[in-house]
Structures are given as structure tokens and as C-alpha cells.
């Protein structure tokens, strides 16, 4: 069965890069342009993993992780934050909100796919 991944980023080109990487490995991809749009989608749909940017309008990625963890269907879903932020302070905020991992942009496509394989096989 095809696994579906929700990608969240306000940058269209970043979403295109993530989608191309994921689709090349056979994943299904759903996109949202910010945390609010992602949360609205997640309230009615389940996905296998979420990859979200941190700094976005309307709702940022850390808030999104926090909100997703309160949804019954997302308590165990891997939630990855993909961001330009590399400060320990922000990382800790993400971890406390319930994120599964932190990836600093620019992502390496091969490494991203290896990370997903690791998470899905865990």
C-alpha cells in the first residue's frame, strides 16, 4: 500500500522539491501552504508522516506539531520539522511540542529518504 506524506511549507519551490523527492521513492504526497491549512486537512484525513517547515504565516510548524499531537489519529504519526532554523533552543521547542525529528534546510534528498525508511521500519 502506498504511504501518504503531508508536506507543509509556504514556499512553493520547497514543496516542489520535497514532493519530487518523495514521489521518486513511490510515496503519495499531499501539500499544505501553512500550518492552518495542514491542520484543517489533518482533522479529516490520516497520513503516514508529516514534513513541515517551521516559519510560516497563520500557523507555524511548532504550533502545528502541538495541535496534531492532540488529534487522536496523529499521536504516533512521525512528524518531521524541515527548517532553516538550527538553534538548539528552537529544536528543543520542536521536541517539546512532540516533533519526531529536525532537519536543517537544505535537505539532502537521499538522506531524507533514508530517514523516512528508518522511521517506517522502526
Amino acid at each position, binding site marked *: 500500500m502506498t504511504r501518504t506524506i503531508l508536506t507543509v511549507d509556504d514556499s512553493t519551490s520547497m514543496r516542489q522539491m520535497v514532493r519530487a523527492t518523495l514521489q521518486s521513492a513511490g510515496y503519495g504526497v499531499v501539500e499544505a501552504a501553512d500550518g492552518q491549512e495542514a491542520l484543517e486537512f489533518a482533522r479529516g484525513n490520516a497520513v503516514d508522516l508529516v514534513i513541515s517547515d517551521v516559519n510560516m504565516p497563520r500557523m507555524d510548524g511548532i504550533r502545528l506539531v502541538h495541535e496534531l499531537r492532540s488529534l487522536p489519529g496523529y499521536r504516533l504519526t512521525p512528524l518531521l520539522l524541515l527548517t*532553516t532554523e538550527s538553534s*538548539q533552543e528552537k529544536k528543543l521547542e520542536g521536541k517539546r511540542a512532540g516533533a519526531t*525529528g529536525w*532537519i536543517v*534546510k*537544505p535537505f539532502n534528498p537521499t538522506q531524507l529518504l533514508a530517514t523516512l525508511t528508518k522511521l517506517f521500519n522502526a
Partner: protein
Amino acid sequence: MSRTPSIPLPQLLELSASQVEVALQNAGAQVERLANSVAAFAKLGAEMCAHPDAAVAAQGVRISAEAQRAMFAMQFHDLLSQRLQHVRDALGDMHDALGAPAAPSPSVLLAAIRGRYTMEDERRMFDILLGHLPGAPPANADTDHESLRGSVELF
């Protein structure tokens, strides 16, 4: 005696912010097109990799590898865009401060500008040029942001 005309600072700040905004929009539209093409190459490469003909599959591996390298490099546009957005917003803050009936204190203005930064090297440059703001968390001096790019940390 002739007087030297004063520099129209608010208008110059507004102009500079507008120039940055136009550059961002123009570059964004082009990068979107380029990203579409790279994504199409990545898809083509993946399809060729699964081809029964070994020669075609080998070409597919090469195309996929090139597409991945292009995808990695293209993400620097996102970093550049963010940095330019912060410059644009800082120019806007300065413009608003100059036009405000009660100008905000310099520390409030500087804290607002620094608070928008999303990259450690932006904060570090700010601190080097303007000094560390009281109460602001220090930029992690022993963290090499370059080396963290692309890093993955699972919690």
C-alpha cells in the same frame, strides 16, 4: 547661502523595501518554473530506473543523481528568499519608526528586527555589527551553521 537638501530617508527606505520585494517576486516566479522542470527530471529519472532495459535504467540512475543534486542546490533560493524578506521587513520597520509620532526606542526596534531572523548566521551577523541585545538569547557561537545544513536529528 544655499542649504544642502536633506536626504529623504523615509522614501529611500520605502524604495529599497519595494525593490527587494520586486526582486523576490520575480525570482520566485522563475524558481517555481525551474523547480517544476527539476521535478519533472526527477520523475523521468525514477521511471527510467525501473526500465527493463539495463542501459535505460543506468541512464535513469544518472538522471536521478543529477536531479537530486539540482534539488539540493535549488533550496538555497529558499534561504536567500528568507534572508531578503528579513531585510525588506527591517527596512519597513525603520520606515515606520521614522514616520511614527512617538518613535520607538532603538532597543525595541532592534529587537523586532533580530526577532524575525530564522538563521543562526543572521543572528550572529546582527550581534557582531550591532552588539548583543540585553535579554536576547546568544547566537550559538560554537555552532557552525554551515555544517548543520542538511543535518537530520531524530528525537
